[in-house]
C-alpha cells in the first residue's frame, strides 16, 4: 500500500516526462551530434565527422560579429519598449473603470496574434510606396521623401524591433497589472499616513512589492525575444545583406535556406551553452526553487 502511494506521483508525471525525453531530449542530443558532423542535406552521401570545423566556421564567419551586435540591439530595445510601455499600460489599468473588461480584451489582443500576421501587417505599414507610415511622416513634414524602411540597412532592424515590441506590450501589461493588484493596500495606506507623497509611495512601496514578478518576467521575456525568428523571417528575411538578422533568425536561415545542418546545429550548441549560463544566473537572481524546496 505504502509502495503504491510512493509510485503515484510518478505515474502522473510519466506522460510529461516521456514526451519531453523522447521529443525534446533526444533531438537535443542529435543536435550536439550534428554540430560535430559535416551534414549538408545537399550532400547526404558525404556525411563525415567534422570535429570542431563547424564551430571554427562560425568564428570565421564575417557576418557573425554584426549579427551578434544586431541580436544585442534587438533584445535590449525590444525589451525596453515592451517593459516601459507595458508598465504605463498596467498603471493606467490598475484602478477599475466602466468598460475596463472590454478595453483589456482589445488591448491585450496582440498577444494572441501570430508572428506571421504581425510581421505581415508591419511590413505593409512600413511599405516604401503605399504604406501609411511613409505617407503620414511625409504629410507632417518629418521626412522629405519616402523611405524604404525594410530595404535599408539603417532601418530594417528597427522595423522588426517595433513590430515585436507591439506584439509583446500586452504580455508585460498583463504580468505587471497582476503584480500591481497583488500589492497590499494596507501598506500603501500606512505610507499615506506616514506622509509619503505619490512618488515616494510608488518608489518605496509599489516597486519593492512587484520586484520579484518584474524580474521573472523580464528574464523570461529576454530569452523569448532572443529566440524570436518568425517576425524577422516574414518582414525582412534578414535582409538587406544580413543587416536585420539576429542569431536565432540566422540559424533558421542557415538550416532552411542553405541546408547546412552541421553549421546550424553548431550555432545551436553555442545557444545551449549560453542558455545554461543564463539559467544559472536566473536561478540565482530569482531564487527560483527556494520556495518550492
Amino acid at each position, binding site marked *: 500500500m505504502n509502495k503504491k502511494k510512493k509510485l503515484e506521483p*510518478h505515474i502522473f508525471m510519466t506522460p510529461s516526462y516521456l514526451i519531453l525525453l523522447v521529443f525534446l531530449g533526444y533531438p*537535443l542530443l542529435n543536435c550536439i551530434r550534428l554540430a560535430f558532423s559535416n551534414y549538408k542535406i545537399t550532400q547526404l552521401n558525404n556525411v563525415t565527422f567534422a570535429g570542431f570545423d563547424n564551430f571554427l566556421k562560425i568564428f570565421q564567419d564575417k557576418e557573425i560579429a554584426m549579427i551578434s551586435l544586431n541580436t544585442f540591439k534587438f533584445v535590449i530595445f525590444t525589451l525596453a519598449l515592451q517593459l516601459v510601455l507595458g508598465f504605463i499600460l498596467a498603471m493606467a489599468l490598475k484602478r477599475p473603470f466602466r468598460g475596463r473588461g472590454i478595453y483589456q480584451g482589445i488591448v491585450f489582443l496582440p498577444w494572441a496574434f501570430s508572428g506571421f*500576421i504581425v510581421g505581415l501587417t508591419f511590413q505593409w*505599414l512600413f511599405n516604401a510606396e503605399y504604406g501609411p507610415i511613409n505617407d503620414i511622416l511625409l504629410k507632417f513634414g518629418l521626412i522629405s521623401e519616402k523611405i524604404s524602411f525594410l530595404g535599408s540597412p539603417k532601418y530594417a532592424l528597427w522595423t522588426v524591433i517595433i513590430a515585436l515590441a507591439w506584439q509583446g506590450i500586452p504580455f508585460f501589461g498583463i504580468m505587471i497589472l497582476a503584480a500591481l493588484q497583488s500589492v497590499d493596500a494596507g501598506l500603501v495606506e500606512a505610507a499615506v499616513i506616514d506622509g509619503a507623497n505619490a512618488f515616494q509611495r510608488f518608489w518605496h512601496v509599489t516597486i519593492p512589492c512587484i520586484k520579484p514578478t518584474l524580474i521573472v518576467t523580464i528574464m523570461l521575456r529576454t530569452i523569448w525575444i532572443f529566440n524570436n525568428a518568425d517576425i524577422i523571417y516574414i518582414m525582412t528575411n534578414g535582409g538587406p545583406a544580413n543587416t536585420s538578422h539576429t542569431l536565432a533568425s540566422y*540559424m*533558421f536561415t542557415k538550416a532552411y535556406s542553405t541546408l547546412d545542418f552541421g553549421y546550424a546545429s553548431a550555432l545551436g550548441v553555442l545557444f545551449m551553452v549560453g542558455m545554461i549560463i543564463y539559467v544559472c544566473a536566473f536561478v540565482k537572481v530569482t531564487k527560483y526553487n527556494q520556495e518550492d524546496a
Partner: protein
Amino acid sequence: MSKYKTKRRLLLIGRILILAFFLFIVCLPIYWMLITSLKTTADINTLDIQYWPANPTFQNYENVLQQSNFIYYLKNSVVVSVVTGIIVLFVAITGGYGLSRYKYRGKGVTMLGFLVTQMIPMTLILVPMFLIFHSVNLGDTLTSLIILYVVINVPFCVITMQGFFANIPIAVEEAASIDGCSKFQVITKIVLPIMLPGIIAVFVFAFIGAWNDLLGGVMFINSELNKTLPVGLSSYVGQFSINWGEMCAGGMLALIPSALLFVMVQKYIVEGMTSGAVKG
C-alpha cells in the same frame, strides 16, 4: 480644496489620454489590415493613400476562399491545433496534478526542468526533429507538426495547470474519498469539473500556440495540401509582388478564430499566466 480638485482632474485626463493612446496603437495596424482587405487593387496601389476604402468590396475575400488552397490550409490548421490542444490538455492535467498534490524527491528539479524547457528556442530542435521525422517516414505530415507543438506547449501548460490544481483545497478530495470514491473518480467527477475554466484556458493556450506557429511548418511541410494557414499564406509573401488585398483578407480570416478564443477566455488565460509568476 480646489487645488486638490484640479490635480485630480489632471490625473484623470492623463489617464484617459494614456488609455486612448494604447487603444490607438493596438488598433491602427489591425485597422490598416482590415481596410486593405476591403479595397480594390487599384485603390491599394495608389500614391493617394486612402484611409477609408473608396470602393469597399469583398472581392479579396472571395478570391482567397475560391481561388486559393485557403480551405485546405484552414482545415489543416484546425486539425493540428485541436489535436495539439487535446494532447497537451491530457499531459497537463496528469502532470499538473502530480506536481501540485505530491511531494516527492526530484520535484524541484522537475519544476526547474519545465522552466528551462520553456527557454529553449524552437529553431534549435527544428533541425534534429526534421531529420528524425524523415527517418521514421513522418516527414511532411501533420503528425510531425502536432508532435512539435505538443512538445513546445507542454512545459508551460503543465506549470499553469499545476497552479490551477493548487487553488483547489485538498479537503475536497479527501471528503470524496471518505465517501468511497476511487482516485480516478475523485479526479474525473469532483476535481476536473471545478477546474473547467483552467482546463479551457490551457486548451486555448495550446490551440493558439499551434495555430500561430510559422517556422515549424515552413521547415517540416512541403506539399501544398499539408500546409497550415501561416505556412500557406507566407509562401505568397516572398514572391515578386504581393497581392496585399488578398494577403490581408487571408490574414484577417486566419486571425478570427484565435482572436475570438482569446477574447472569450482571456480572463482565465491571464489568471493562468500570472499565477505562476505572481505570488500574491
